[in-house]
């Protein structure tokens, strides 16, 4: 039946051309908008919440207990997203900023959940090698503290692993006078 064949051919053409012509008509004044919606523009231009996403930032001075060797380094993290963010891991090696000697490691004790839009202080702690610190003290008599830097900082934020080779100026370990 020719009529059936013609009807089906017309239907095929309408099915394919209809939506394409329709969307092209709607975007006739901005054809680039067909493949580049406002959400993509916002993401590229930094207007989206995701582009405000920053790795945890150091805040304040490290807290150091010279008797036990315990050290706590605080990081500040703001969750710019609309869903909860989990920080599952945050670890680093603590180095003497001057000599580059390794003093020990710090890590997050347990995962931290941060609600949308909230800023949290994340405390990362560890035990430093007191013998090494004593040696540094002996090499530099009269100093009040040891400037530290962080190496091999690893952060697991919302399933994304960030590795930084070096974080300079991580603060100063206050030594007992």
């Amino acid at each position: 039946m020719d009529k059936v064949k013609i009807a089906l051919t017309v239907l095929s053409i309408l099915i394919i051309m209809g939506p394409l012509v329709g969307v092209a008509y709607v975007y006739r004044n901005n054809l680039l908008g067909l493949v580049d919606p406002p959400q993509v523009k916002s993401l590229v231009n930094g207007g989206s919440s995701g582009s405000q996403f920053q790795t945890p930032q150091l805040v304040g001075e490290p807290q150091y207990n010279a008797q036990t060797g315990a050290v706590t380094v605080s990081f500040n993290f703001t969750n710019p997203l609309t869903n909860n963010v989990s920080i599952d891991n945050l670890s680093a090696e603590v180095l003497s900023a001057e000599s580059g000697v390794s003093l020990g490691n710090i890590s997050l004790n347990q995962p931290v959940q941060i609600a949308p839009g909230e800023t949290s202080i994340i405390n990362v702690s560890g035990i430093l090698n007191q013998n090494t610190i004593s040696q540094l003290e002996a090499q530099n008599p009269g100093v009040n503290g040891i400037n530290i830097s962080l190496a091999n900082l690893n952060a697991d934020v919302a399933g994304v692993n960030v590795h930084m080779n070096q974080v300079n100026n991580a603060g100063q370990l206050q030594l007992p006078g």
Partner: protein
Amino acid sequence: MMGRSINWFGLSAGIITLIVLVISFYVPWWQLTIGQNLIKVDASPVNTNFGVFGGAQFTIPLIWALNLISILTFTACGLVMLVYSLNPTKSYSKQLLGFSYKKPIYVLISFVAGLVAIVIIAGFLGMSIPLMGSTTLILPAHFISSGLSISALISGSFQLPFYLAIAAAALCIAARLFHSHIAKTETLSPPPKTTPAVSI
């Protein structure tokens, strides 16, 4: 009295095609997630959208138009296949079958080809995207500053509607093959007997 011919493969194909259409509005054919749902892509020929950094999901207008083409194609093919299957011996049945059996296959092949193309293009950009399974996506060094590396778990998986679409496409092919059998049977069957006139 002869039983009515039905192309059961076609009937099944038509029903499954319509089921695939409905399910695809709610469940994607293929899903990609990066990190803890930081980036989520729900892809299907019927409904493709993107969710980035936990924000509201969005689609791209051209993809939306292509999705609408697939919706109309699936609807037309499913319905025409059902009409054909219940009337496979009519004079117009071959046209109905020719219209309806190829398109689900074309949609399926186009979808898979599109995914493979995306994976290849991402590969050229130095990023590995798995079609199935998980891997670690390492952001290429030229995207970030030195001394910093960023990686994330990336998972891709095909979902139930994709497998149903394969089943629908296979049944469409079976319906086409079975049509030849029905047509042959129809040709070989004797013409219906006419009742002789009764004279009183």
